[in-house]
């Protein structure tokens, strides 16, 4: 057994070899534990097959003005609506100050194709599918979409106007591959 004097022998600054070993061992174990936790947390993120963004092609030729269809992209519902002139005019007439998430209809559609409103059908509140895409469904107080779960109303440009949702319905990345075909993703 080493006595206290022996352990402290030759040390003037009060730091013993043992203190160094303690700090080094605990730090090493700490870094090691964190390194093990990272993959354990990361495994919960979307896996490669989920992330592989399949792009969806939609034929929009059959959608008449005033009609909308519901399709899906990355397993999420997508609304494609062929707006009528009145709906576009209504959307343009709204002053930006009245909007919770200010965006013009031009920002939400492609140039020259502003009658095509393509959004995710996922309410930005808690993710229900709003009503209004199918014939005869409740389109809410602003003539766009209405989410029945918690009562969010969207206008003709699918912008949030009333209720608990914080954002406009999301416009996914898409482009017109031809006049009648849209590729989402």
């Amino acid at each position: 057994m080493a006595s206290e004097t022996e352990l402290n022998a030759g040390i003037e600054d009060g730091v013993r070899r043992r203190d160094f070993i303690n700090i080094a061992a605990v730090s090493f174990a700490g870094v090691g534990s964190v390194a093990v936790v990272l993959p354990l947390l990361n495994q919960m993120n979307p896996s490669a097959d989920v992330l592989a963004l399949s792009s969806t092609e939609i034929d929009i030729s059959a959608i008449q003005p005033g009609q909308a269809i519901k399709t899906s992209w990355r397993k999420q519902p997508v609304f494609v609506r062929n707006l009528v002139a009145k709906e576009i005019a209504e959307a343009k007439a709204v002053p930006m100050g009245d909007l919770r998430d200010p965006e013009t209809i031009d920002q939400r559609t492609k140039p020259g194709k502003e009658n095509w409103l393509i959004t995710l059908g996922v309410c930005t509140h808690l993710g229900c599918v709003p009503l209004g895409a199918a014939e005869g469904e409740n389109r809410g107080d602003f003539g766009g979409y209405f989410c029945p779960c918690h009562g969010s109303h969207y206008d003709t440009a699918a912008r949030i106007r009333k209720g608990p949702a914080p954002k406009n319905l999301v416009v996914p990345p898409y482009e017109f591959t031809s006049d009648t075909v849209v590729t989402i993703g």
Partner: protein
Amino acid sequence: MSFPWAKPYEPTHPLMKWMDEKLPIPRLVYNATGPGYPVPRNLNYFWNFGVLAGAALMIQIITGIVLAMHYAANADVAFNSVEHIMRDVNAGWFIRYAHMNGASMFFIVVYLHIFRGLYYGSYKAPREMVWLLGVVIFLLMMATAFMGYVLPWGQMSFWGAQVITGFFSAIPLVGEPVREWLLGGFVPDNATLNRFFSLHYLLPFVILGVIILHIWALHIPGSSNPTGIEVKDEQDTVPFHPYYTAKDGFGVGVFLLVFVALTFFSPNTLGHADNYIPANSLSTPAHIVPEWYFLPFYAILKAFTFNFLWIDAKLWGVIAMFASIALLFFLPWLDSSPIKSSNYRPLYRIFFWILVADVLLLGWCGMQPAEQPWVILSQLGAIYYFAHFLVILPIVSRIERPLPMPNSITEAVLAKHATDATSASATA
């Protein structure tokens, strides 16, 4: 850890003596739930609900383990595997209905247990830690119940998972990545179902662990009682066994009667018909509501329909909902009155019953669609709920003049006995 007059454990049989030296489990049981644990002599039937909650947990664990032998946690087959349990597995319908209704029974007894704690001030010193651990158990129960409800992969399962994981997307900046991390995708899917099954199997055992801590913390000061006066000497107590093992045994019998009546005669009353429709990620049920035990909190979530200050409505709703439960952690310090039992608190008692009515009102509103008058009622109900804990309770506990109290548990019991005897002789 116990009162000085607690009966000591003295094994006589050589085997028990041998066991006591090697692994003193019989000693532990004797001193925790046996003759070696003195308990106030005046506990009423509200003190049964802790044991009943334990019984409900055991029923859930046993039926759950059996169900897991037949269930398949895969989005393609989960719904059908539950139908397979219902139609093909021997007695499968009974085990699943017992598990479904067992969850409701668990929440009923736990809500009554919390009611008892609130009315009789069981959360006050020296039992704050018992209360805090209880709130932890309650949170774990909610997480477990939610994830269990997702497993059948019906419409309510799917949309419940979508909405509840949506809560996390309200967190500024990191919300959406956190939600995707929880789901393992952009919508609830196979990855979500698998991890929920794994955690749904794990959490009940975590609950069991916290219950052991809850009971450990309880056994340091010992049980509270309807007078709220602490035990003073031996005549205030009776041994747990046989007095309370018998009383709890009777309670368990009544509990089981209600439980089997619900399971056999009305197994789907507390569920939702929509959950017998397979999950469809493109169509939300017209009216989505959580299980009944979440309704008051759901109403608080739905009460926030407008942006306020710099925080949007969605984040307010989520903050308020979590805060309504987190508030319970602060209860022992929000109520500064030294009087525990509401029987001696005339003013608090009034507000206590208003709170009970308010929570029932919120529960009713939680069930209704997001329309008037339910929105305004939820808003008023939510305001009152927070006002009760943050404003009324601190004020009442300072200004209230309590009723005269007996000096001891025994005095209270004998006084009651004397009144009963007088009225009995008066009638005779």
